[in-house]
């Protein structure tokens, strides 16, 4: 009986504003595995999909950046839990996309899940690390706190389709930013499947928006978009990165240039906190204490 069964192929779709639309343009492109065998058709996003994604990300920003850091940590941890339950699917997709053996792909997916847990832990701790009380020469409390930059465009790494993706998306949203993610052009399937996980992890719609397609085509309007506050150029090659950084200068976007590790397939190294701090702004508040020493108070 099973021999006669028709194949049920999965229609990969974008993840924008908590929904799964096709590309506005109606276009798709063929995605192959590392040996050139056809895997699926992925939506080929247009600049209008990018614009819609920015609108969704902006809409989600107030709620997500206003959520307590503790709550954000819980949700990021929930994403790890959901991924754990669908591990087999991601192992298969990563193995096909990156040409890894099943055991190597399993190690990559485990590392990606652990990375969500790592960043989940950081949400309510990064404030203490990069903020704090500043000593000033006057009767003031002077307190600095980190605040999210806003809507961040993330060009995911081209080679590491899943661990690399998680490693660039998780730190952006951990601190309260919302993200428009451009998935790896040749291996977008793990990213598009991640959208399904995010949709079922209590992550509010629009916090992460995932687009697949030709990186340069989608990135150009995002880099010049006046309502995008920052751009992570990880997935851009040198020529594209330069062009995008030029476009990004127009509204003074914060730009994270490609890092030494970004082109590599191996993202297993300790991530540190630099990707968390790359998309934070510092707010400093001065609060008068009254003259120190008067009435014996020294605060």
């Amino acid at each position, binding site marked *: 009986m099973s021999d006669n069964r028709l194949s049920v192929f999965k229609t990969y779709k974008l993840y924008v504003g908590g929904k799964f639309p096709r590309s506005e343009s109606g276009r798709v492109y063929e995605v192959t595995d590392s040996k050139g065998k056809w895997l699926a058709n992925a939506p080929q996003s247009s600049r209008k999909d990018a614009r819609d994604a920015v609108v969704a990300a902006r809409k989600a920003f107030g709620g997500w950046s206003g959520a307590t850091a503790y709550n954000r940590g819980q949700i990021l941890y929930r994403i790890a839990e959901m991924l754990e339950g669908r591990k087999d699917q991601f192992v298969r997709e990563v193995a096909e996309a990156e040409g890894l053996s099943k055991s190597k792909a399993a190690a990559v997916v485990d590392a990606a899940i652990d990375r969500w847990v790592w960043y989940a832990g950081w949400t309510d701790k990064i404030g203490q690390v990069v903020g704090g009380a500043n000593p000033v020469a006057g009767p003031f409390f002077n307190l600095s706190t980190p605040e999210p930059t806003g809507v961040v465009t993330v060009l995911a790494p081209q080679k590491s389709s899943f661990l690399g993706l998680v490693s660039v998306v998780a730190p952006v949203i951990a601190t309260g930013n919302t993200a428009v993610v451009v998935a790896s052009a040749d291996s977008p399937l793990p990213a598009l499947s991640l959208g399904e996980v995010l949709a079922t992890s209590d992550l509010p719609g629009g916090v992460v928006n995932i687009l697949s397609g030709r990186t340069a085509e989608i990135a150009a309007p995002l880099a010049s978009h006046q*309502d995008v506050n920052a751009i992570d150029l990880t997935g851009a090659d040198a020529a594209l990165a330069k062009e995008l950084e030029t476009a990004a200068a127009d509204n003074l976007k914060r730009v994270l240039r490609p890092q030494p590790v970004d082109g590599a397939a191996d993202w297993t190294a300790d991530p540190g906190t630099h990707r968390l701090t790359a998309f934070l702004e510092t707010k400093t508040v001065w609060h008068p204490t009254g003259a120190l020493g008067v009435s014996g108070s020294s605060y």
Partner: protein
Amino acid sequence: MPTTAPAFSDATASDSALRRFLHGLPGVDAVGLEARAASLGTRSIKTTAKAYAIDLAISMIDLTTLEGADTPGKVRALAAKAVNPDPTDRTTPRTAAVCVYPDMAATAVAALAGSGVKVASVATAFPAGRAALDVKLADVRDAVAAGVDEIDMVIDRGAFLSGRYLKVYEEILAVKAECARADGTDARLKVIFETGELSTYDNIRRASWLGMMAGADFIKTSTGKVGTNATPANTLLMLEAVRDFRAQTGVQIGVKPAGGIRTSKDAVKFLVLVNETAGEDWLDNHWFRFGASSLLNDLLMQRQKLSTGRYSGPDYVTVD
């Protein structure tokens, strides 16, 4: 007192004659109407046509603030925006009018004096219209005395829905009479049907004819204060009504969809409806208006996108 077009003097002779006339109008094919409105919404308007449509839509906006929290300062800010919607681009057209509550009318008139932007005031116990006729008329009188150019009245939906069409008709006539100014000119009268409360398309068609026969200068979909406001379908229906009315009587009446139109895309769809239904004669802010507030910002962002090539954002337009 303005008189009914002679063609309808029979129909308005008595309550039963009016009911016979209105119920004798052809029934509306609801499925066909919605399909027609939806299919006209799929037109692709690009490049220079889009730029034209955006500027036309801006020039058709009745920039509206109808909140309990309105202050003279807010009205003045809105008036400044109507005159100069995008301070970074002086080629941006002005909006058609500013629409306020009657007690803010004098403020708006003073702020817009000499600008060419008109002042519209809602009246007749807007938005519910549940007040005695005297009170409604006094409301209109106040607004006209404050110097407004246009009056947006609401019909008595309770009377309409219970079939007392002549009461609605006479009320519109009475309001129209109050629109007369001392110098012999009239404030233009927009009649709001609150289509969301009329339940059926047949009722919207009847209300449209009733309003036009009573001397409305504009027929307007809704107040923006209920769940269902302007939709492409109910606006299409009203556009058909004004088209047919002109064919029959030679009198041209304006249409104003209001409420729920927030994006440039929506606005352009409505303009397509106007062009394809009523015709080019209505593609002018004397005959077609958008009752909107947030729509203007979206149009300005689209306009900036067309002129700079970059997508704009809410940081580059005012917070109203």
